[in-house]
């Protein structure tokens, strides 16, 4: 079930567009603004309506708020969420509100989704503006955006419908990394392995990232690159993804979406890299993951080496992924320091197999032994989300446990988060350097305690459903949690 066929039924429920307000400024040329529109088969008049409204409000709000233009339009039936991905390049997501279908949104969560799409796009394709400058007709940008975003949205497709993160996902934080907590012994082994990996090509500045299942064990990348690559790994590379989704997805891709993409990108004569396509990664016999996403080598036997762009330095890196059972290693080597094509690549692989294999096996064994399963981070009686904004790290109750909460509690938490989001963004705009300090404890109508604590860049959200009725009891619960699991970060003394 590809997106293009699904659209007829739900064409109004969700719309997502990317447009460049520098383009198409002459009357009659407005279509040129549109770089991406989902659903693609929405009549142009309707597409232009959304873009016209968005541009109108961007201009209007700049009158009063030159430094931050329109972020949200909240109407009775729809929310329009804005994200200025690059200067004058806007992403606008329009979601229909529908209480019966549980379509109740938290704006910030939707904005983070847009941001994630763009960050991943940057990582694989570089900036949209740059693509537009290279190829002013915009066809290349359009075909890249089209396949990329559609592949991304495919993950949210449930039956015929796109299901974006709603209030029920209020105890998750997109754009953050989830870490594995490890003991001292394991940490030492990790360190040794990282040293080996990072020196795979002599003096070149290699970087590495190690994951255990869907959790981060170590990284030598910058926080932004870590977040992006981690998101990608969890979406497409980890053992869970490789073992589950691949087969069921592949027929969808071949069946429906591809022809559409071909129609968009085909006439460019340019190969469109689709790193988010499902079922494109597979594990080779030597433990390295193979893909033909980046095309095939001249020999026609092996796929070209995947490449990504670093967010801050803008450096292009070759991406090697090695997997041993639950352990995934990602190695990034500057493209410029790979000596000579295919040969250089096999040198890197050979180096890892020879020098790191043993360490990898030992570490995997150790981590697996200490791992207590998917509920490892469940804390009885609590449903929580812990976010470290500065380090872009989060930890939460396992999803299976969060679903036991009632709809009322989740809604109350989602609303509370919305308020907190607002206050955080204001505090940021005040830019007086003072970090927000906040403690909110609410007893909701259904008697659940809904709690939020913000302190020194750390955030704690908590729902206590089966709790004693006094406020002091709820505070004690938070205190205990803080002392036991957060090194007292949220404790009051």
């Amino acid at each position, binding site marked *: 079930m590809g997106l293009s066929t699904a659209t007829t039924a739900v064409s109004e429920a969700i719309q997502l567009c990317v447009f460049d307000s520098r383009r198409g400024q002459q009357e009659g040329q407005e279509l040129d603004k549109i770089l991406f529109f989902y659903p693609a088969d929405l009549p142009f008049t309707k597409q232009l*309506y959304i873009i*016209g*409204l968005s541009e*109108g*409000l961007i201009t*209007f*709000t*700049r*009158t*009063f*708020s030159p*430094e*931050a*233009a*329109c*972020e*949200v*339009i*909240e*109407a*009775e*039936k*729809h929310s329009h969420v804005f994200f200025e991905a690059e200067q004058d390049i806007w992403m606008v997501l329009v979601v229909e509100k529908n*209480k019966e279908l549980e379509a*109740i949104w938290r704006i910030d969560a939707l904005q983070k989704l847009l941001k994630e799409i763009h960050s991943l796009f940057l990582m694989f394709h570089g900036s949209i503006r740059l693509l537009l400058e290279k190829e002013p007709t915009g066809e290349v940008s359009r075909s890249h955006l089209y396949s990329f975003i559609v592949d991304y949205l495919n993950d949210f497709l449930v039956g015929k419908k796109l299901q974006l993160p709603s209030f029920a996902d209020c105890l998750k934080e997109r754009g953050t990394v989830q870490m594995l907590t490890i003991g001292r012994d394991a940490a030492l082994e990790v360190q040794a392995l990282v040293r080996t990996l990072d020196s795979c090509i002599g003096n070149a500045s290699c970087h590495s990232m190690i994951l255990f299942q869907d959790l981060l064990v170590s990284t030598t990348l910058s926080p932004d690159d870590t977040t992006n690559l981690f998101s990608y790994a969890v979406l497409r590379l980890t053992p869970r993804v490789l073992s589950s989704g691949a087969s069921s997805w592949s027929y969808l891709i071949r069946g429906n979406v591809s022809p559409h993409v071909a129609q968009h990108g085909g006439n460019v004569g340019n190969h469109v890299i689709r790193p988010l396509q499902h079922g494109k990664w597979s594990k080779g016999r030597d433990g390295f993951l193979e893909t033909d996403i980046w095309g095939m080598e001249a020999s026609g036997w092996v796929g070209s080496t995947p490449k990504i762009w670093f967010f801050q330095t803008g450096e292009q890196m070759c991406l090697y992924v090695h997997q041993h059972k639950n352990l995934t290693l990602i190695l990034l080597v500057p493209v410029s320091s790979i000596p000579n094509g295919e040969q250089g690549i096999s040198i890197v692989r050979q180096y890892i197999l020879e020098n790191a294999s043993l360490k990898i096996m030992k570490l995997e064994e150790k981590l697996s032994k200490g791992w207590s399963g998917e509920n490892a981070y469940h804390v009885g009686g609590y449903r929580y989300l812990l976010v470290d904004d500065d380090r872009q790290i989060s930890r939460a109750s396992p999803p299976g446990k969060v679903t036991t909460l009632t709809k*009322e509690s989740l*809604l*109350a938490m989602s*609303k*509370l988060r919305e*308020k907190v989001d607002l206050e955080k963004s*204001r505090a940021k*705009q005040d830019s007086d350097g*003072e970090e*927000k*300090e*906040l*403690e*909110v*404890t*609410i*007893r*909701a*109508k259904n*008697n659940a305690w809904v709690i939020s604590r913000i302190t020194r860049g750390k955030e704690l959200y908590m729902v206590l459903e089966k709790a004693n*009725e*006094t*406020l*002091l*009891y709820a*505070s004690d619960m938070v205190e205990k949690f803080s002392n036991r699991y957060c090194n007292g970060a949220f404790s009051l003394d």
Partner: protein
Amino acid sequence: MSSGLSSLSSSDELDNFNPRTSPTTPPKPLEEELASLALTLPHPHLLSDQEDANGVSDGSEADSNGLGIQQSDEEMRVGEVCEENVVGNSASMVQEPTGGSDGAGVVWGRTNSEIEVDRPASPSSSGYAGERGSSSASSGRSEMDGVAEDEIQELRDDDASIGENSNSVPSWVPGKRHGDEDDASISWRKRKKHFFILSHSGKPIYSRYGDEHKLAGFSASLQAIISFVEDGGDRVKWVKAGKHQVVFLVKGPIYLVCISCTEEPYESLRGQLELIYGQMILILTKSVNRCFERNPKFDMTSLLGGTDVVFSSLIHSFGWNPATFLHAYTCLPLAYGTRQAAGAILQDVADSGILFAILMCKHKVISLVGAQKASLHPDDMVLLANFVMSSESFRMSESFSPICLPRYNPMAFLYAYVHYFDVNTYLMLLTTNSDSFYHLKECRIRIETVLLKSNVLSEVQRSMLDGGMHVEDVPVDSLPRYRTISPHLGQQRAPSEFPERFKESYAGMGGPGGLWHFIYRSIYLDQYVSSEFSSPVSSRQQQKRLYRAYQNIYASMHDKEIGPHKTQFRRDENYVLLCWVTQDFELYAAFDPLADKALAIKICNRVCQWIKDVENEVFLLGASPFSW
């Protein structure tokens, strides 16, 4: 500015507005009717008795005042000398009706033009002077100055902070500000909170800042946004951009918009737009819609001519009057017997064909009585009191004015007889009968006699001086009557647990346990009582911030989809706020940000008990049933 709205000069045309009084009269074109209502000027004394006109010492002075107003109105029409208009208007507003400070306002009006703009008003100078200074020179200034100007305004507000108890001339002066600005002015764009009323064809009707006529283009873009979204089959509620929020409200052919960076929640801003719309209905009734049915491009500004002061004082009250978001009214604290005495005489006259009889002191109710089955919505009371208090002419003499209570019947006019007994205390008698001026006047005389005899008016004066509940007076002793009212606000601990901490946090720092302020709303009575501001929230700015914090927590407690919540504890860098909603009451209490949680809970329980103990005095009990 016209004062004509508040006093009826010729009642003939107005009868048409009340279908009940003369259904057979062939109706005139509505625009004409409304126009005649708005523009009938300037003889406030036509129906009033000169000897009875309490508070106007000299008829000729009042006349000359009226003349001054008219002049400035003409200047406005020319469209050039808007500042002068502000002066003329303000000068007339400052004038004391009791004659205590005769002429002072006029003198200020003249001298203020010399005040240096860059120098903020010193604490000793009148706030009014500061205002005048800032308004006269706003046009040619740099961006930075534009900001500073708002600060000047804040300072001036501070002067007014002492407020409630002092009988001094209020420093805040209602009326149009910065009338020379438009949407091209940077100073205009930087104003913290704009309010606009426009018609569905995009014609400006009211703008808090700037000249409506110059804002026609801006108004058209607001209209375009609303109708563009409507074209898409939806209705825009709000737009957010950085710290700014744009809130839209569509009421038939009338569009209302607020643009604000005050951090107030959407629900509050929307509520404020609803009140502004209500205020407009109070002046014109909803039958104004018919004008738009006949002529979509109808220009409504003339109908509201001279009512700038009413809107600006309502908007000002959004920053200090909890009634505007609590949807409840507050009473002046009085001994039970005193209030009973006032209620009895009001009831007495109400039986003679009066719909509502309301005795108020500023925005606080002394007593009120309604005819059988008639109920008065607290929002209507806010609007009515604002209308009366902001229109200077009501103070000049007894008046008889058509008004509409939007929650009671938005389609029809009632007639309000208004009379001030002293600077702050006034009586409003509402009737459906446009001919009953003399009857109401007699009623008023009877009421006045009784109020004087029973010392109600002097008790009112005393209560004004004493103020209401002070957080310092929260009982801290553990008398046997003490019990924990709330099971979930407090643990069942022994009442005498923190005796030494009570004392410690007490001295000069608000009430026990770091209590700074509270608001208690009785749900059945539709009334609230709030404490006086204690020393930690003594400045106007601190009070405004606290007020906004209350607004925020009120909105979050009363979320439409999931509310009301039962309890909320909130600690940020400014306060600890504790909020507690039950079936009977709501309590909002503000504490020192470092307050101890357990102690704060205990204090809240004490406050609730305290209010129960004194509810005879702080609430109007046994008033006619309010059944909305």
